[in-house]
C-alpha cells in the first residue's frame, strides 16, 4: 500500500520534469514546480517551490536493436492482441478477479482537492517530535518578488524558536501534509506521509527471546566503538559513478547510435491502413 502511494506521488514530480525536457531553452535552473503564497496569521509571502533533491538514477531509453528507434509503451488487449487507443481506455477498480467498478474522470476530479495557491501554516511544531518515517519528499521554497523581507523574517524566527510550520498543501491531484522549516537561509518544505500510510513494524520484530546481560553489553560496546559523526559526503552511489564513467568513455569514443528521424510515433488512427495501402500501391508502380 505504501509503495503504490509513493509511486503515485512520484508521477507528479516526473511529469513536471518531463515538461522541462521538452523545452530545454526554458529550462532555467530555478524553474518552479508550483508558485503561490505561504501564509500564517496575517503574513502571506509569495514563493516558488523548487526541487531540493536530484534523484540519482541514470535512466535509459529502450531502443529497437534493428534500427535504434526509441520504443514507446502501448496498451494492448491480451484477448484480441490489439493495441488499444487511449480514447478507448477507461478506469476500473478491481473488487475481485475480473470484476471491476468503473470510475469516470469526472468522479475522480470530484474528489480531487481544489487547486490552491496557498500553503497555510496551521500549527508550529517541534520537528524532533516527527518520526523520520513520515518524511517523504523535500523541496525548497524561494521568495518571489516582494516577498524577500517577510521570507527572511520567517526563516529567522523559525530558527530562533527552533520550530517548524505544519501546513496543508495541494500539489497536482493530491493534498499533502507538509512541514516547512528553516534550512540555512532558506525555507525547506517536506511532504509527509499520512498516518494511515505508515505500516507498523511490529509484525517484523522477533518474538521475545531474553538475552543475557553479558550479551547485551557486548553489543552495546561494539556499537560504541563504531560511533562517528554523520558525514554523508563519505558515501556515494558507486554503481552510478561507474556507469557514468562508462557512458563518458563511450561518448568520447563516439560509440553512439543514431535513431531514424522519428519525433513522433505514427500512432494515428488509420496509419497502419495507410501503410498497407502504400505497399499495394507500390506493387502497382513497380509493375509499371
Amino acid at each position, binding site marked *: 500500500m505504501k509503495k503504490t502511494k509513493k509511486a503515485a506521488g512520484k508521477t507528479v514530480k516526473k511529469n513536471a520534469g518531463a515538461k522541462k525536457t521538452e523545452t530545454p531553452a526554458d529550462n532555467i535552473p530555478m524553474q518552479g514546480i508550483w508558485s503561490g503564497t505561504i501564509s500564517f496569521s496575517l503574513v502571506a509571502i509569495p514563493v516558488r517551490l523548487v526541487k531540493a533533491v536530484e534523484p540519482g538514477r541514470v535512466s535509459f531509453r529502450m531502443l529497437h536493436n534493428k534500427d535504434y528507434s526509441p520504443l514507446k509503451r502501448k496498451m494492448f488487449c491480451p484477448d484480441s492482441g490489439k493495441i488499444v487507443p487511449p480514447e478507448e481506455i477507461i478506469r476500473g477498480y478491481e473488487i475481485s478477479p475480473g470484476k471491476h467498478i468503473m470510475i469516470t474522470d469526472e468522479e475522480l476530479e470530484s474528489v480531487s482537492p481544489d487547486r490552491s495557491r496557498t500553503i497555510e501554516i496551521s500549527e508550529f511544531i517541534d520537528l524532533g517530535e516527527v518520526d523520520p518515517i513520515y518524511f517523504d519528499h523535500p523541496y525548497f521554497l524561494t521568495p518571489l518578488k516582494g516577498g524577500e523581507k517577510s521570507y527572511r523574517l520567517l526563516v529567522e524566527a523559525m530558527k530562533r524558536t527552533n520550530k517548524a510550520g505544519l501546513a496543508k498543501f495541494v500539489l497536482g491531484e493530491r493534498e499533502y501534509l507538509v512541514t516547512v522549516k528553516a534550512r540555512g537561509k532558506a525555507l525547506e518544505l517536506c511532504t509527509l506521509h499520512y498516518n494511515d500510510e505508515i505500516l507498523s513494524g511490529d509484525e517484523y520484530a522477533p518474538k521475545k527471546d531474553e538475552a543475557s546481560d553479558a550479551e547485551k553489553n557486548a553489543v552495546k560496546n561494539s556499537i560504541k566503538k563504531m560511533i562517528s559523526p554523520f558525514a554523508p559526503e563519505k558515501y556515494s552511489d558507486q554503481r552510478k559513478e561507474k556507469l557514468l564513467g562508462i557512458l563518458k568513455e563511450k561518448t568520447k569514443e563516439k560509440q553512439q547510435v543514431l535513431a531514424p528521424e522519428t*519525433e513522433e510515433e*505514427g500512432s494515428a*488512427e488509420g496509419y497502419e491502413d*495507410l*501503410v498497407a*495501402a502504400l*505497399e499495394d500501391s507500390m506493387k502497382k508502380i513497380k509493375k509499371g
Partner: protein
Amino acid sequence: MNTNKTTIKINNRDLALSNLDKVLYPAANFTKSQILKYYSSIAPYILPHLKGRAMTLKRYPNGVNEDYFFEKRCPAHRPGWLETADIPYGTSKQLNACLVNNLETLVWVENLASIELHVPLCSAKTPLTPDSVVFDLDPGENAGVLECAKVALIIKGLLDNMKLWSAVKTSGKKGLHVYVPLNSGKTTFDDTKNFSRAIAGSMQNNYPGLVTSIMAKTSRDKKVFINWSQNDASKTMVAAYSLRAADKPMASTPLGWKELKAFLKKNDPAGLQFTYSQTLTRAKKNGDLFSAMLDKKQRLPYL
C-alpha cells in the same frame, strides 16, 4: 552619380534603399539592386505564396559567401505600415513575425539582403493546420537532382493512386520539393507528418538503394533523403520563386511533372537548375504552376 542609395515610392509608401551596388553573388557579379529587380518582377507570382505567412528571413548582409543569419522576429526598425503577426514560438512563447503581404514589404525585406525567403506550411492565422504536405527531397553525397527526380516521380505515382494532386518545384539547389495542397483547415501537422512519414518509410523499404528516411549524413550516400519531418509547425520551407544563396542566383522553380520526366529521360541535371532570369521567363510564359497550392482543397486518405 551616387547610385548606392535611393528612395522610392511604392503604393504611396516611401522606401529607403541602400547599398544597391553591393555585390551579393560575387561569382556572378550579381548586386543587391539586381536582387531587388528580380523580386519586384517576380512579385505577382511569389507574393500569393508568402501572403499571411510568418516570414523567416535568411539574411546575407555581406553576400552569399559570408555569414548569414535567420531572422524569425520581424526587425524592430521596420516601418509602421508593415504587417506582422504573433505566432507561437516554442511551447509557451510568442514571436512577432513579418507578413510579406505586398510589394512594398517584399522590397523592404530584400533591402535587408534577405536573399532566401522561408515560410511555414501554415498561415499565421491557423498555426496548427498546415495548408499542404511537403516531401523535401535532399540528395546525399554522390546523388543529385536526377535521383531526386526519380524519387519525386515515384511519390507522385503513390499520390496519384490516392487521387491526390501534387506539384513539384526545384529547391534552387540540388533538391526537389513535392507538395500536396490540402487547404482544408482541418488537417493537423500530426496528420501531415504521419502521412509523409508513412510514404518516406514505404519508399525506403521498397527502394533501399535510392531512398533513406534517416537524417544522418552517413546513411545518405548515393541516396535521396526524404525529409518528412519538415511537416512541422516550427519548420519552414524555402518559398517558390525565392532566390537561393549559391554561386549563381538560382531560384526555387515550380515545374510541370511532364517536364521533370523529360529532364530525367534526357539525363539532364543541369536543365533542372534555373537561374533567376529563367525562372522569371518561365513564370511569365507558364503562369504560376503552383497556383493550385493556394486554393485546391484535398483530404489525406486514412488519416
